[in-house]
């Protein structure tokens, strides 16, 4: 029996460049008996572009997503992309659920908006933590990481409903549950620059370089993330940022979902990890955590 049934809004980048994140979430949900049903014919949430230059459109785009979701029986929705998570929650707050909203977006009033889950918070609930720890076959002993939460899953707190928005704990609890050691560090929620990587790469290089530097200083061997934009900036551009800084950081960047998959021997881990640009395998081999059969 499925223990959870959730609506699922993957968002655009999980269909494109962040396939590794998407596949790892699907993979671990299968192994944890969570049924995900994609929102039918979903559309883009508008992301930074829409909220920056067209606020009305950013709300209307999300309005359509909620209307599509209203056709589903599920009352809770899992949103892996923190940007989408933030836009969806913002729209809920901006549009008090009233007759006008119902008329405009044709969302049935008695049902209201679904509960929106950020993936890291979802997998860090007591129930999920217990389910995961029952599945762990290969504890990630010796792996010392820093957890990097980024901006959008936490801020502002009235949108994220996060009480510890300056020092979130969900990822730390997840990796600790897997047997790895999360190291406390001050840059958990500092910004990576997100889409500025295309328009102002110098800003991203400065911000992400600072993150690497601090991660190394506190003795981390890797960084754990729950956001595909953070992952892109930290993983894909690592070589370039190292060149800008004239320093070798060599930090593998793992999604927390990949680590859950690795610890509980979900098939597909190799495929997910091999799409990273900063080689994630040497560290795992060194720690004896990577012995593919």
């Amino acid at each position, binding site marked *: 029996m499925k223990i959870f049934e959730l609506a699922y809004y993957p968002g*655009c*980048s999980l*269909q*494109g*460049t962040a*396939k590794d994140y998407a596949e790892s979430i699907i993979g671990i949900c299968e192994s944890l008996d969570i049924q995900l049903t994609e929102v039918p*014919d*979903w*559309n*883009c949430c*508008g*992301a*930074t*572009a*829409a*909220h*920056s*230059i*067209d*606020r009305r*459109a950013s709300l*209307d*785009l999300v309005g*359509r997503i909620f209307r*599509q979701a209203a056709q589903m029986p599920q009352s809770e929705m899992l949103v892996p992309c923190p940007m989408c998570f933030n836009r969806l929650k913002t729209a809920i707050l901006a549009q008090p659920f009233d007759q006008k909203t119902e008329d405009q977006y044709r969302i049935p009033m008695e049902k209201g908006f679904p509960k929106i889950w950020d993936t890291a918070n979802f997998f860090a609930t007591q129930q999920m933590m217990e389910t995961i720890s029952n599945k762990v076959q290969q504890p990630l002993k010796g792996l010392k990481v820093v957890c990097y939460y980024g*901006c*959008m899953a*936490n*801020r*502002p*707190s009235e949108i994220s409903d996060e009480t510890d*928005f*300056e020092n979130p704990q969900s990822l730390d609890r997840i990796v600790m549950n897997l047997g790895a050691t999360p190291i406390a560090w001050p840059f958990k*929620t*500092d*910004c990576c*620059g*997100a*889409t*500025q990587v*295309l*328009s*102002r790469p*110098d*800003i991203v290089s*400065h*911000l992400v370089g600072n993150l690497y530097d601090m991660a190394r200083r506190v003795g981390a061997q890797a960084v754990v993330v729950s956001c595909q934009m953070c992952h892109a900036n930290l993983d*894909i551009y690592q070589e*370039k940022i190292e060149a800008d800084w004239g320093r070798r950081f060599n930090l593998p960047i793992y999604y927390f979902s990949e680590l859950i998959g690795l610890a509980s021997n979900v098939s597909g881990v190799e495929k997910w990890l*091999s*799409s*990273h*640009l900063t080689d994630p395998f040497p560290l795992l081999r060194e720690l004896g955590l990577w012995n593919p059969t």
Partner: protein
Amino acid sequence: MITKDYKRRENKIEQMHQATLHPNEIFLQQLEADGKFDADVCFQCRKCTNGCPVTFAMDLYPDEVIRLVILGQREAVLKCRTIWVCAACETCTARCPNGVKIAELMDAIKERTLLERVPVPQPQILTLHRTFLKNVRKWGRAFEGTLLPAYLLRSGQFLHKWRERLWGWDIKFGWRLLYRGRFFHFPKKIRGKKEIRNILIHHKK
């Protein structure tokens, strides 16, 4: 000596009084009409600026943007680079002791800049936003496979790199992405594309 210093300070206070005696609230009211940002309760503690990760690339600091908005310094605000380089990380909004929606206000200022056709000091950032929305308008979802090339072309980066022979790194980079199995995904229009087209009616270009 003391009297001189005292005099100078008095002059300064007088100047400040003049500024506060003739506040132009129209700009503030105009912006607040686009959403509730509560800019007027700012008491200039600078917590927003101290936590902002991008100040090194800004011409005005976030607290200065708020102050100038309150003072009605329309031109200085609409022309500043700050609103465009802001990474929308929300640190300022999350930390403001008075609940000023700083990041959201910067979005509203950007919209107003476009409305009033004020030249944008960071055109490549605006180009990225526009290319993105045009892409969404077309497919219903953002499709990176056409978004990136379109952005490189529109922003002139492609031409620049071609002329300066700077594309070596990009080619290697693109190849590595392909090799790692990223980008292989064909665009598919969603069924509700008509609705999306209506929502993004202003983003044909």
